[in-house]
């Protein structure tokens, strides 16, 4: 038995080492100026100083943030409204809402981006605006995650009883839903929104295909610097990974807290 525990531990350590290797090597790479031998030389934070002073890079962070907040806000609102209708009035419609929400999961980035592009590239109105296309695409691509999150939250509480109780006390259905149900499932909404942040934050396909390079987010910035200056790119990489880890950590923390409840 002892031998077996050692073997499983060894296996896990091995997989962890494999998964962390590219990360660790790139982090070390970003901290040294010279690495032509096995041991790197000349520790320096210079590349971080350069990019953190680069206005273009800071603008990228702001753009990425905007590209997260707006579509997630839109999707959470429209799915909540749709779920309000399906839970309170027409439960039979839920099936269709679910199907519509799950389609983006199967078609994924490439097909979604080219189909939106081909549908609206010649449209003259605001639909032809590349930024509108991008935000629309983001709103759609995160639907599966937001839908599932809200659905999970709702299945944990008894929506019907709560709504009826509120109605008996004289509240309108709409009021009951948004003032009683939504606050109760807020933590699930936050968790799914954070998952969506992770998706949009890591997106390259949609932003490249839909906007070319006109809307430079952090991924595009990394792509362009990695073609020209790999030391600078490694610092960008580390900052992107730090933000990603932060998002994951907060998501995991909230998830665990919810489970304890």
């Amino acid at each position: 038995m002892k031998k077996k525990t050692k073997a499983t531990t060894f296996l896990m350590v091995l997989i962890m080492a494999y998964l962390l290797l590219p990360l660790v090597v790139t982090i070390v790479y970003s901290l040294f100026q010279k690495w032509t031998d096995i041991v790197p030389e000349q520790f320096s934070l210079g590349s971080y100083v350069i990019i953190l002073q680069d206005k273009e890079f800071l603008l990228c962070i702001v753009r990425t943030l905007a590209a997260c907040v707006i579509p997630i806000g839109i999707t959470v609102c429209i799915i909540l409204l749709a779920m309000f209708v399906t839970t309170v009035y027409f439960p039979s419609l839920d099936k269709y809402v679910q199907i519509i929400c799950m389609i983006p999961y199967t078609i994924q980035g490439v097909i979604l981006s080219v189909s939106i592009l081909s549908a609206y590239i010649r449209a003259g109105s605001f639909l032809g605006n590349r930024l509108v296309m991008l935000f629309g695409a983001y709103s759609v691509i995160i639907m599966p995650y937001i839908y599932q999150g809200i659905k999970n939250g709702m299945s944990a509480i008894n929506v019907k009883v709560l709504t009826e109780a509120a109605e008996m006390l004289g509240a309108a259905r709409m009021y009951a839903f948004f003032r009683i149900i939504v606050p109760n499932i807020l933590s699930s909404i936050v968790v799914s929104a954070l998952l969506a942040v992770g998706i949009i934050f890591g997106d390259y396909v949609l932003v490249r295909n839909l906007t070319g390079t006109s809307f430079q987010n952090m991924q595009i910035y990394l792509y362009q610097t990695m073609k020209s200056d790999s030391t600078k790119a490694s610092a960008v990489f580390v900052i992107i990974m730090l933000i990603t880890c932060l998002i994951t950590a907060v998501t995991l923390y909230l998830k665990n807290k919810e489970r304890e409840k």
Partner: protein
Amino acid sequence: MALLPFLVVALLYEIIPLIMVIMNSFQSDAGTGITLENYQTIAEKLLYQKAIFNSIRISLISSLGGIVVAFLGAKAIAESKGKIANLFMTILNMVSNFAGVPLAFAYMVLLGNAGFMVHVGQKLGISALADFNLYTSDGMSMIYIYFQIPLATLLLVPAFAGIRKEWKEAVALLGGKEGLFWRKVGIPVLMPEILGTFSVLFANALAAYATVYALMMNNISLLPIQIAGSYVGEVKTRPGLGGALSVVMMVLMCLMILLTNRMSRHFQKGGNPS
């Protein structure tokens, strides 16, 4: 009324574009009218045959590789449940968001032409490392396997909760070794989850774009690259052809889902695979 905003967004950015792509695929890029010309081009031209073949190949290889490692990893998590297992889960969650351009860049630093491992290989005289070429389809397969492992493991971990200790004990009582247990009981019981995970991995690899594009630009023949290329092409766009390629890709995904569903039904009925 409250359903309206949802329907508008879904229609505008999901349903209409999808219908447009399918319709485009039946329209000639040169003339007008309904035609199967685009599908014919795909079937005849070596470039597109290769793209389809390469995409299926890399998706199958990476999904298989990913699922084998994930099976061992998830099994280890289920069997240990200690601090290490917790750490392992945290790292898996962390790394599961590690894909696309950042992953491509990290592999460039690690195994690219002047990469760290290449230096190590040269210094220590390991020719497999020193001569490794990342910019080939084997190099790409390696990166694909990398991003499949965390996803696959996270999907498989919950399934192992279904393996009951009593079954292992029963097999042991009858004189069976652990290997026999997994061959005859464990793996068949887990098969529906394994197959489901496999189809998710397949779709994930088939649609992967950013990682390959960041390393290879358009110098590799894969379906997503060809699709994107025919819309955002350098010379002129070919929406008809791109549409047809997109349809091919969606059909491939659906086929894999159907196939794995069918196979897993076989296992759920308790049929014996051997």
